[in-house]
């Protein structure tokens, strides 16, 4: 069990965070850059001393500013995968891994780790000769080498190209399970957080604004910020109860319904993949309650789906298939009706 609570001043704002991660559990710290995520890792590693705080791991006290305890980083034994990996440029891959190992049989053990991460054939290469994906694996092997008590990973996949990332992500998930220690993973990408984190803590301006499983966060965002961060579309308006539902008069015109209850100023969020697109005019009869007239402002392919940027008085986004684009003959400037269910609409008071 790794637990941390810390308060410290970072450029421009106050970091105030408390978190726990159990052995074998990966807690993803997700949020925009500059939110203080990396500072949390640095406090755990002993590289940054907060103004006030307490860090302990497996019952061992690493930092207690009240008691004056501050165990130096070299005695904490955390495995830290730095952003861009920070491999030693003057050492070969295996010597990077062996850096944390005792002198005897260090080469065998380093090669064994590199072999487990399927990169033993690059053991003698220098970091600048390795690809991004290879560097990531060497950095992970180095962090795992000395059997760390906790793992800290700072944007471990963001330096990789899209093709390498999915594969590296699966390997990383496996390695995290096998290591069986508490892990903290920093990412600005909600998809990465949901892939690798057993739980996700959303960090904004030095605070953990919400935490839970990725599914919980996406389904019940506690704030417009979290809704936006999880990829949902956020619409603002004024809510009032109507016919057993909540009716929201949207800023910029139009109104929608939600099964959530709220009154006053609200942020309504809906996932782009829950929005259906139909030709303009009277909506086809169906169970969906919400219909907004909109104009297509952008069409972006994302893999096998297409994200439509819409202007419905407020910006809106829908995800549909290629076939739907063809069948409806959609192009920029097309008028459409966006339709979704009141039960897919989450409300958060503003």
């Amino acid at each position, binding site marked *: 069990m790794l637990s941390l609570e810390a308060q410290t001043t970072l450029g421009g704002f106050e970091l105030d965070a408390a978190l726990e991660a159990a052995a074998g559990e990966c807690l993803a710290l997700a949020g925009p850059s500059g939110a203080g995520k990396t500072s949390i890792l640095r406090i755990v*590693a*002993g*590289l940054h001393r907060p103004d006030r705080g307490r860090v302990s791991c497996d019952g061992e006290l690493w930092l207690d500013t009240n008691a004056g305890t501050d165990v*130096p*980083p*070299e*005695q*904490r*034994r*955390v*495995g*830290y995968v*730095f952003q*861009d990996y*920070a*491999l*030693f*440029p*003057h050492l070969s891959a295996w010597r990077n891994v062996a*850096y*944390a190992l005792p002198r005897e049989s260090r080469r065998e053990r380093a090669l064994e780790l590199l072999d487990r991460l399927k990169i033993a054939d690059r053991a003698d290469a*220098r970091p*600048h000769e390795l690809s991004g994906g290879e560097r990531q694996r060497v950095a992970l092997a*180095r962090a795992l*080498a*000395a059997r760390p008590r906790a793992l800290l990973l700072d944007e471990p996949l963001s330096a990789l190209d899209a093709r390498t990332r999915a594969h590296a992500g699966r390997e990383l998930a496996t390695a995290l399970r096998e290591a069986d220690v508490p892990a903290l993973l920093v990412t600005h990408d909600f998809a990465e957080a949901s892939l690798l984190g057993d739980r996700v803590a959303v960090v904004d301006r030095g605070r953990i604004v919400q935490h839970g499983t990725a599914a919980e966060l996406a389904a019940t965002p506690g704030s417009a910020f979290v809704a936006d961060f999880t990829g949902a579309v956020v619409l603002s308006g004024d809510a009032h109860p109507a016919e057993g539902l909540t009716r929201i008069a949207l800023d910029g015109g139009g109104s929608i319904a939600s099964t959530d209850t709220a009154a006053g100023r609200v942020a309504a969020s809906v996932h782009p993949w829950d929005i259906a697109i139909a030709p303009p005019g009277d909506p086809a009869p169906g169970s969906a309650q919400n219909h907004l007239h909109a104009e297509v402002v952008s069409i972006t392919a994302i893999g096998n789906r297409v994200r439509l940027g819409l202007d419905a008085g407020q910006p809106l986004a829908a995800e549909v298939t290629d076939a739907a684009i063809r069948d409806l003959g959609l192009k920029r400037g097309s008028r459409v009706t966006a339709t979704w269910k009141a039960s897919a609409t989450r409300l958060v008071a503003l």
Partner: protein
Amino acid sequence: MRPFTALLAVALTVALLFLVIPVAAIFANTAPSDLIHSLGDASARDALRLSLETSLIALAVIVLVGTPTAYLLATRRFRGRSVAITLIELPLVLPPAVAGIALLASLGPQGIFGGHGPQLVLTTAGVVVALTFVSAPFYIRQAQESFAAVDPRLMEASRTLGAGEARTFWQVAVPVARAGLLAGGALALGRALGEFGATLMFAGSFRGVTQTVPLAIYERFATDFTGALALSAVLVAISGALLASVKLAGRRAFA
């Protein structure tokens, strides 16, 4: 060629000619056999041996004390840091005669530390002191820049991997900064080999004891111009080799 480009090319040509011709003249004025013959002279050999010995000892002292100094200045922030940096750089801009007077005023027989400790004036040890004084800033400045250029995350990575500050210094900071450290060492050595004014004032010019090559050149240029040329040629060769090794060390630094 555009007029402006032509202007730049002219400037380069003038600069090259002005800087290269005098050095080339050292070799052009004398036959190689004369040069080699002059080096057979005992006093020339004494000067060369003394120059190399004192410069290398000075370099060893500078590296020993200057490397940790530079590392401290590069990696820690503390009150008085910029004052310390400025004071260390001061000898860079000090005229050599002033350096000589400064050494006499502090370590000379009438100096503030005079009479205490070993006698330095007019001794080989005095030469080493003078060389160290004028050359140390060249090394410390370069070493400080090289340490400052090491990505701090490399040193943090080393710490999280179980290495204390001392092991991080030896196994990460020094190897990663080594090209810059070598360059700084070469610069300091070059400066020490060429030192003239401070050495003359503080240690004098006694053959075999304090007469380094620059002092020997000065002593004989009126009476034995060929001999002065020969010694100069040797210094040019050593300095050129030093400069080339600095360039090579810089180029071979890893990506």
